[in-house]
């Protein structure tokens, strides 16, 4: 490992993200405030106003317009950034397709917050999970450090010539966004060598007018373009692994790739989780190991592209697995559960129980995770709401 310079400081997840955007030398920012994302763009607005970063900041009247603004700036070949949460993300939905369909390597932060009604500002992944089909790469972070590091890795991955798709990086509301912990800020020079300047091959040029995403008949190339997006998603997997390991070599922090395994090798019961819930699950699993229970954890970092092979491999020896979703697809199960079940079905994998937990910011406690492992041992099946009225 190369020796890198860094400074360490206590900061919230949102400040860590803003520092990441600064280090990534983003040149254009447009956003609309929404709790709990607001402090990211507040911090960035301060940085622009104090000339700490060389970027233009545009205030807009809605999230739809914020995404339209960064769509245009990316198309002009300028590295851009925006952030949102919850209803703001839903309001962007149409423009998310435009950015991915135009193959623009934008990076956006989403601070996961519940969707109303009733109004609720707390942690819940329903907002980003309902954007899974928009053609964006999705990363779920579990620490403030990872939230910063994902911005740096995110631009590298999104801007790779084999990927050219936008990426959204998630933080759990308040648990990361507004809670301070120690974060290492890498030096600008090291970041500059890791993340070179954006060079877009097809940027808008007034002397060579072109139609950008203008029109396509059923005869083509519409279907071919969508198929190419699918192929780029699959192609992004080796790029993600490569960039993650290059990041580890440069900065000394290894996030393992698309997923992170914890004591899965000989585990009978494995829980798959994402975000900060995965940290609590690891903590509980370590305790249960000391009691002699063979349990393990898989943390899903990337939900898009979906890490099918990784999850299959990690849980292949388990007798039963549980999947924690902090979101629910009504009439189905949790989104993560549905996809993992489908991946395991094709591989004759173990039975997978869907645990719906922490909806609307309800705390996912040590006792809740212990109960989930207990239910796996006792042979429960199906879709189970955890720590919710009427269900044990």
């Amino acid at each position, binding site marked *: 490992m190369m020796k890198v310079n860094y400074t360490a400081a206590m900061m919230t997840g949102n400040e860590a993200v803003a520092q990441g955007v600064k280090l990534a030398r983003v040149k254009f920012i447009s956003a609309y405030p929404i709790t709990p994302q607001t402090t990211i763009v507040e911090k960035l607005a301060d940085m622009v106003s104090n000339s700490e970063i060389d970027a233009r900041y545009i205030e807009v009247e809605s999230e739809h317009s914020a995404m339209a603004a960064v769509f245009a700036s990316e198309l002009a070949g300028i590295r851009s950034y925006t952030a949102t949460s919850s209803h703001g993300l839903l309001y962007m939905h149409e423009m998310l397709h435009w950015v991915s*369909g*135009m*193959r623009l390597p934008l990076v956006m932060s989403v601070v996961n917050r519940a969707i109303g009604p009733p109004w609720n500002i707390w942690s819940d992944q329903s907002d980003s999970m309902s954007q899974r089909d928009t053609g964006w790469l999705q990363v779920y972070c579990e620490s403030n450090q990872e939230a910063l590091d994902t911005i740096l890795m995110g631009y590298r991955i999104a801007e790779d*010539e*084999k*990927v*050219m798709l936008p990426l959204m990086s998630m933080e759990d509301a308040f648990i990361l966004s507004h809670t301070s912990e120690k974060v290492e800020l890498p030096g600008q020079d090291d970041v500059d060598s890791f993340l070179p300047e954006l060079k877009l091959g*097809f940027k808008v040029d007034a002397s060579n*007018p*072109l*139609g*950008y*995403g*203008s*029109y*396509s*008949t059923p005869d083509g*190339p519409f279907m*071919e*373009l969508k198929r*190419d997006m699918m192929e*780029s998603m699959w192609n992004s997997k080796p790029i993600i692994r490569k960039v993650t390991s290059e990041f580890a070599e440069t900065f000394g922090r290894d996030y393992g790739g698309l997923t992170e395994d914890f004591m899965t090798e000989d585990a009978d019961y494995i829980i798959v989780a994402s975000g900060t819930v995965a940290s609590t699950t690891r903590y509980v699993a370590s305790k249960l190991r000391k009691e002699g229970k063979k349990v393990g954890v898989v943390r899903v970092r990337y939900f898009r592209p979906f890490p099918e092979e990784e999850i299959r491999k990690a849980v292949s020896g388990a007798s039963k697995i549980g999947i924690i979703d902090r979101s629910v697809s009504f009439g189905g199960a949790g989104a993560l559960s549905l996809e993992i079940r489908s991946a395991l079905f094709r591989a004759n994998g173990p039975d997978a129980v869907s645990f719906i937990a922490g909806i609307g910011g309800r705390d996912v406690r040590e006792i809740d995770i212990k109960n989930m492992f207990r239910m796996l041992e006792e042979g429960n099946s199906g879709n189970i709401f955890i720590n919710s009225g009427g269900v044990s």
Partner: protein
Amino acid sequence: MVLIPLADKSSRMNLTGTWRTQRPIIEYEKCIRCSICWKFCPDNAIVLESGQSVAAPNSRLLPLDIPRIDYDYCKGCGICAYECPEKCIEMELEEKD
């Protein structure tokens, strides 16, 4: 390395007339060259042409510009046929293989 949805000359390459299911046909023998069809066409798919020798209801109309339908872009909406004061535009069903 990836496909980007860019196009030059996009409206010239994409002939939107392929959307049409009914084709307007002008009967020049009845056409009084009023150019109302040209004014109402919502897609600029009717052009006025001069110096054409086509039939007319009378010889005084012969030197005037005639409306011609650009089937590359006419979507067959039928507004021209509806507005024509002489009812000299017929909509014919088109069949494609």
